[in-house]
């Protein structure tokens, strides 16, 4: 799975405005809508929030990976948002979340969806990579952390 084939500068924001889980997820969805990556925003929002209700996708060290399976996409789509100040995302370690990587994958379609999530997570597993990401001023800086 090539991260490069999924991510592009238009799918990245370094300055999320919202300070709530709902707000951040909404903002990230707006990016995907603007890039015509998803058809039905409301359906996707519901799917993402359902997933959050089952178990928060805020994992550790300020990283959150909101994701869901939905019929609103026909192939894997992803976007990245940064909020250096951090927000409460009900993270498993209780820390505020700062790096948000959202992925949406189609239902009933075989593909390396979790594998993509794992690959992205692996890139930012070191503190150094996360710090570089949070210092990013532009989408290009963010992509360079992923080696793109």
């Amino acid at each position: 799975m090539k991260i490069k084939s999924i991510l592009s500068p238009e799918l990245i924001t370094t300055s999320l405005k919202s300070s709530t889980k709902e707000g951040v997820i909404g903002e990230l969805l707006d990016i995907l809508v603007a890039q015509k990556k998803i058809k039905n925003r409301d359906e996707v929002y519901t799917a993402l929030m359902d997933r959050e209700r089952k178990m928060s996708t805020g994992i550790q060290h300020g990283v959150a990976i909101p994701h869901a399976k939905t019929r609103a996409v026909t192939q894997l789509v992803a976007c990245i948002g940064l909020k250096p100040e951090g927000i409460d995302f009900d993270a498993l370690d209780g820390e505020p979340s700062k790096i948000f990587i959202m992925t949406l994958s189609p239902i009933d379609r075989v593909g390396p969806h979790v594998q993509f999530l794992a690959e992205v997570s692996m890139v930012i597993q070191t503190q150094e990579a996360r710090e570089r990401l949070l210092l990013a001023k532009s989408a290009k800086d963010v992509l360079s952390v992923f080696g793109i």
Partner: protein
Amino acid sequence: MAHEMMILALQLGVILVMTKISGWLFSRKLHQPKVLGELVAGMVVGPYLLGAIPLGSLGPLFPPVAGTIPVSPELYGIATVGSILLLFTSGLETDLPTFLRFSGKASVVGLGGVIFSFLLGAGITVLLHPSVHSIMDPEALFLGTICTATSIGITARILGESKKISSPEGVTILAAAVLDDVISIVLLSVVVGISIVKLDGGSIAWSGIGVVAAKAVGFWAICMIVGIFAAPHLTKRMKGFESLGVMAEISFGIALLLAGLSEMAGLAMIIGAYIAGLSFSQTDVSAEITERVKAVGEYFIPVFFAVMGMMVDFSAVGSVLGFGIIFSVIAFAGKLVGCGLPALFVGFNLKGAFRIGSGMLPRGEVTLIVAGIGLASGAIGPDMFGVAVMTMLLASIAAPPLLVQSFKGGSGYRKQLEEPVQSHMVTLELEFPSERAAEFVRRSISDAFRSEGFFVRTMEGSVRSWQIRKEEMVFVLRRSAERIEVIGRQEHEAFVRLLLMETLVDFQEFVDSLKSMEQPEMMGAGLLLNMFAKQQSSDS
């Protein structure tokens, strides 16, 4: 033409019915490998026994055909497809990393066997045959070469039946047998070259023989290298068909192509088929291809063995019985010692060396090819062809029980050489309150892997272990009672953690939905009430 095809259909029908019954009898009642039953079935129904009896206006079902092969070209063609299928599946079932790891040892074993057998075979011919005076005599050369080839087919079938193909001995035997066949064919081309010149009364042109030999070895090496690198890319492309059936069928097509090319290069077809199998063996779809090809093989492979049995001309063997027996014993000794002894020096203990020696005993297709060419070129007569067939037969009958017996007991590999446990593996464990819950989640985990494009299959000899594979990613999933384990390489740990987490989140949702379900016993009561309601209405 229609008459020939009708005969072919009848022949194949008889062969299939007889080999299946005889194979069943040998494996279930006599506890011998099926292949022996198939060989014997071929001898019994073949042109030199029952097959020669005329059946009214139809005539004999297996009329002896003039030439070196006593069956019709059509039937021999089907048998050839069987041998290609057999070697293709043998290649597919070989564990390539183990094969490569043991190829050095196999070269030593194979070469030892070839040199020792050749010298013994040619030597005994010079010693006992009144008209042969030198080891360079065509007859001595041919009989020496006849001793060298191992029937990888028979050995592979026995190893496959007893699930020993991937053991250190199994891989060494198969790799050495393949090398043996390659060396034998190279040797054959050299011997044919010398014989032709000798029979014509001229001197030997070593350069011409060298070219033939180099071509054979070059083809083998190039195909192995290209195959091993190309197969994963090829299967990746073929996944686009979204049909495992189509993939298996195309793969077999490639095996047939390689078999043909192999013959063109002066090697036996079975070698190309084996290389094709070996190349696909390391891809993530090897198990799926094997399963499908094996199903087809069940129909064609017995035909191959039956036809081998049919080649035995009992009358030709009769006149040279004494020499044949001595020659067979010598051929046995040549392989047992020639392969067993070098095995002792490359890490096997006595038990392992004996296993390897017995595994190299069976003679088969290449022996017949060598003998057939010898007969056709006039280098050997029908009597010596009979000796070759006898050697093949005795070895093929004696080797399977010996091989099966030899594989009983512990490892044949010296302890200090056994592979160390891999340290970069990670095990993730989950524990559930009941076996049923664990099994439910285990199935969900398998499904989750499948939806990521992985192939999941039950591991051989186990009911609770699964191998999960996609390209270079390999995991083992195990369930023991309430516990589930996923074992994989460290670099894939994050992926497994995320996948397990998603499966558990789904499981949680399922549990919640169960909680909201109406009382199951009420549902049951409803079902029973409905049953009685129907009975009442039918009463009235």
